[in-house]
């Protein structure tokens, strides 16, 4: 039944490998940048808050595909030479996903009640000690379910790198489909693979959400 898939399995798996690479790079950069974006969004200094807010609001209104194209056109101009599509895609993803991760971090930072911080200070802990032993561990535990969920979204979003010709999982499936025209098999296969990974991921996220609720951290 899935003979077309079986015949082309190595090729397709290779594409999935590219998808995974894209995902990891996008997550690494997106989460790191997202931490800064989150800080920027709670900053009291206007010269930090304003530009970050403009950036976040801009990106969130624009489709990811367009962002991917935009960087694809911009990068060669800035770099002075045509750019590797993988790099261009990764940069687009980082810039895009960082806004969503940024909002998760912002909510995490803001969820720590002021009095909890005051309680720590009242025992004589310094700012960095409070951040290290109280703020960051608690914020991280609270944000973990959302971080996992957004990572799953990023994983799905990498499929859009299709449009600049990147040979990731979906494009390779489409290439095979052009040859074999066994569309139902092939696209079901892609769908099932994504489904399995994302479904498991969302179960993991829910597990941490339950755990957080039980220990009173959430």
């Amino acid at each position, binding site marked *: 039944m899935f003979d077309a898939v079986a015949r082309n399995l190595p090729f397709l798996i290779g594409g999935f490998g590219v998808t995974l690479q894209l995902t990891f790079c996008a997550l690494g950069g997106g989460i790191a940048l997202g931490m800064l974006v989150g800080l920027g969004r709670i900053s009291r200094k206007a010269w930090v808050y304003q530009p970050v807010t403009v950036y976040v609001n801009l990106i969130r209104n624009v489709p990811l595909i*367009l962002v991917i194209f*935009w960087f694809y056109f911009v990068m060669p101009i800035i770099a002075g030479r045509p750019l590797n599509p993988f790099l261009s895609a990764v940069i687009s993803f980082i810039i895009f996903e960082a806004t969503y991760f940024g909002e998760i971090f912002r909510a995490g930072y803001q969820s720590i009640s002021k009095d909890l911080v005051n309680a720590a200070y009242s025992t004589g802990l310094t700012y960095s000690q409070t951040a290290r032993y109280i703020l960051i561990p608690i914020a991280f535990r609270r944000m973990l379910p959302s971080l996992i969920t957004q990572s799953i979204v990023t994983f799905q979003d990498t499929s859009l790198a299709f449009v600049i010709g990147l040979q990731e999982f979906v494009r390779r499936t489409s290439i095979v*489909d052009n040859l074999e025209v066994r569309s139902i098999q092939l*696209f079901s296969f*892609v*769908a099932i693979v994504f*489904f399995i990974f994302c479904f498991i991921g*969302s179960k993991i996220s829910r597990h941490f959400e339950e755990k957080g609720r039980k220990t009173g951290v959430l």
Partner: protein
Amino acid sequence: MGFAYDFDWGVLWRQPYGMWLLQGIWLTLKIGFLGWIIALFLGILIGTLRVTPWRWLRFVSTAYTEVFRNVPFLVQLFFWYYAGPMIFGENLGRQINQIVGLNYYMAIFALGMYTASRVAEHMRAGFASISRDQYQAVLSTGMTHSQMYRYVIIPYALRIILPPLTTEFLTIFKNSSIAMTIGVAEITFMSYRIDAETFHGLEATTGAMFIYLVLGLTVVRVMGIIESKFKIPGMIGR
């Protein structure tokens, strides 16, 4: 720095490019709206199935939501467009593929199906946020379950979830851009086409971003007016 590039912002309004963009906007609006209508009806239906007393109906609703959420929209679109016609067998499938504008209809269909799963999730959250006591209060006036849902709970839940629904409405316009991959000539497709002809993709895509921004702000403004008309007095608003 020395950019080896001369900017040409005229591509945005010079003919025929300006016309292309306008046509693209029109198409984006069409597939967005039509997809949204499907999504609303289907989503409310599926969301309500989730809370019925019959286990297999609930399962259908949960399965629908899980499947459509865990597969990327691009993959769903490709499935319906490429594999969809084949479901009807070789002959009928070939005939379907001859239909002019098939990609347009498929895009609307796929958008509707996908967004419906998200609307269904919001409905579930809306139902859950209505207190158990409220349900019991309605039942104690003698209404049946289906009457309760039809006249009280569903309208109530819809008002509660207006803010997240606004976000979904915005998202559907953003997702409409993905239809360009099957050749639907909406905004993003047009900006890419302008680049193919003029090599000024940067200006074209920047212009397209601006258009989406305006679209987004308009949607938020319009939904804000609707929200205020339907707001429940006493509830904490946005």
